[in-house]
């Protein structure tokens, strides 16, 4: 294989597959491995390849199956009859790597190490509930500086970043409500979404406060399910069943100013009330030659509503500090917004599969088959994190 130097658009996502989505624990007695296999098989069917063509795995979140369980390449080979694997690797840390996992697949493919690479997540919260996971962890010398505070889950931790954002920039709870409500609107016509009933401003403001300034509607769902995507060379992709979703740019990493982020809180202004994504954004724009104005749909990792606002700022969809007013203006609405966000209902209303639903929706938008299709969408941004580094982002584009 010969690739020209500097190409960033020589691979594409060619298959996507998912299980149904379930509320926390309701996917039992299926196992994480079983759901993962179902998603892989569905992605192969979608792409029009045999599962025996799979030769690579590019994971994230330490190849975790949710939190506390593991995804295993050897198990997939044995279970699905995959004859040989020539690449098996993972991005480190947690959900921050979701969008970047296909960048890892791209690295494998452009190096000639593998041809059909799966990236996936399978999640079941029957035993451990993510919402209070830090409260259940055994104390260690580092978390002993955090755990006693009562910040028992990721949302609790991010509420502290949010408070600072409100203090510095005058951001209002109405802005978080708009993220929650607009995301819910996008989920209403989606058969697989777990929350489809409309959410009103009154309901939002009457929602139980969990970690003030955040209420229950600012927290993503706690759900089960699996999503897999298959990445391959663009020339190969053009021979397959679906319209390729080109990987136009992909980056993971971050700067020390963010570092362990909210598991550390060492950041100062302006990094504290931020998403950690500014360096990722810079690299994506440089790789692609695009700017925020070129993006047709933004699929921003929405574990907690204010973090959508901080990503909008860090990717340059609006100025730093203006994210609250930006979303309150209606800018992220599917109907009438300047940059539709989380057209699939996101993790706040559709399902939380640790970022993979954002990639799936990105592919559908580029194919032109999304339920809430943005007309003539040419470029879709998907992100992973904000979380402990690495965080990541990927721009998908139409193959023209």
């Amino acid at each position, binding site marked *: 294989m010969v690739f020209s130097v500097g190409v960033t658009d020589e691979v594409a996502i060619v298959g996507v597959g998912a299980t149904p989505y379930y509320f926390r624990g309701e996917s039992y007695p299926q196992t994480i491995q079983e759901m993962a296999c179902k998603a892989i098989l569905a992605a192969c069917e979608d792409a029009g390849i045999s599962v025996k063509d799979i030769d690579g795995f590019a994971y994230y979140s330490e190849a975790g199956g949710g939190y506390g369980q593991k995804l295993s390449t050897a198990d997939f080979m044995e279970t699905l009859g995959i004859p040989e694997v020539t690449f098996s690797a993972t991005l480190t840390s947690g959900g921050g790597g979701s969008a970047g996992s296909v960048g890892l697949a791209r690295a494998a493919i452009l190096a000639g190490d593998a041809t059909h690479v799966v990236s996936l997540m399978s999640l079941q919260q029957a035993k451990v509930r993510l919402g209070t996971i830090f409260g259940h962890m055994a104390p260690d010398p580092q978390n002993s*500086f955090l755990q006693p505070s009562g910040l028992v889950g990721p949302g609790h931790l991010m509420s502290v970043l949010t408070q600072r954002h409100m203090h510095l920039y005058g951001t209002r709870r109405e802005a978080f409500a708009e993220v929650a409500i607009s995301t819910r609107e996008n989920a209403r016509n989606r058969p697989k979404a777990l929350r489809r009933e409309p959410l009103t401003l009154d309901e939002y403001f009457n929602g139980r406060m969990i970690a003030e300034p955040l209420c229950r509607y600012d927290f993503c769902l706690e759900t089960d399910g699996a999503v897999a995507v298959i990445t391959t060379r663009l020339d190969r992709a053009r021979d397959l069943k679906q319209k390729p979703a080109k990987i136009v740019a992909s980056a993971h990493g971050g700067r020390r100013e963010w570092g362990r982020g909210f598991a550390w809180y060492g950041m100062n202004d302006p990094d504290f009330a931020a998403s950690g994504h500014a360096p990722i954004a810079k690299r994506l724009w440089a790789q692609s030659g695009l700017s925020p104005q070129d993006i047709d749909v933004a699929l921003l990792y929405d574990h907690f509503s204010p973090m959508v606002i901080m990503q909008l700022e860090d990717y340059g969809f609006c100025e730093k500090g203006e994210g609250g007013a930006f979303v309150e203006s209606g800018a992220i609405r599917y109907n009438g917004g300047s940059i539709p966000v989380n057209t699939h209902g996101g993790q706040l209303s559709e399902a939380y599969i640790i970022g993979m639903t954002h990639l799936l929706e990105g592919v559908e938008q580029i194919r032109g088959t999304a339920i809430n299709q943005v007309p003539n969408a040419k470029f879709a941004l998907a992100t992973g994190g904000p979380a402990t580094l690495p965080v990541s982002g990927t721009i998908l584009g139409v193959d023209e």
Partner: protein
Amino acid sequence: MSTLTSTMPPEGIHITTDDWTEPFWQAAKERKLVAPKCGDCGSYRFPPTPFCPNCQSQNTEWPELPDTARIFSFSIVRGIPTVTENVILAVVVEFDGIQDVHVVSNVIDAVAEDVKIGDELSVDFIDIAEGWKLPVFRLKK
């Protein structure tokens, strides 16, 4: 009257240490709030780690932090499953003049709704499991 803020149940608060974090907790037992400072370049770091991130030295001093603590940010946590009645004010504390130290703690005995970023704090210590003491903060009057 509002419920005053508290901590997680102290007898249930467990910590562990390693060689690089133990001096912090030993000082806390003597009711002193300290932080690691590089013995070569003078940079602070927190939580304690084995190297100075500025110059990579392992020479470490443990000066007491100044009495200039302020709330950098906070969250009011309610309804934690095991302690539903408690109102817990989790805070990130900054110290005037020391940019690289943020201590994560609680403000106790406060009316949560009255607290704001920038409020001045004074340190106190409470007994937790296994004979350790945990630094916590109160609003300066």
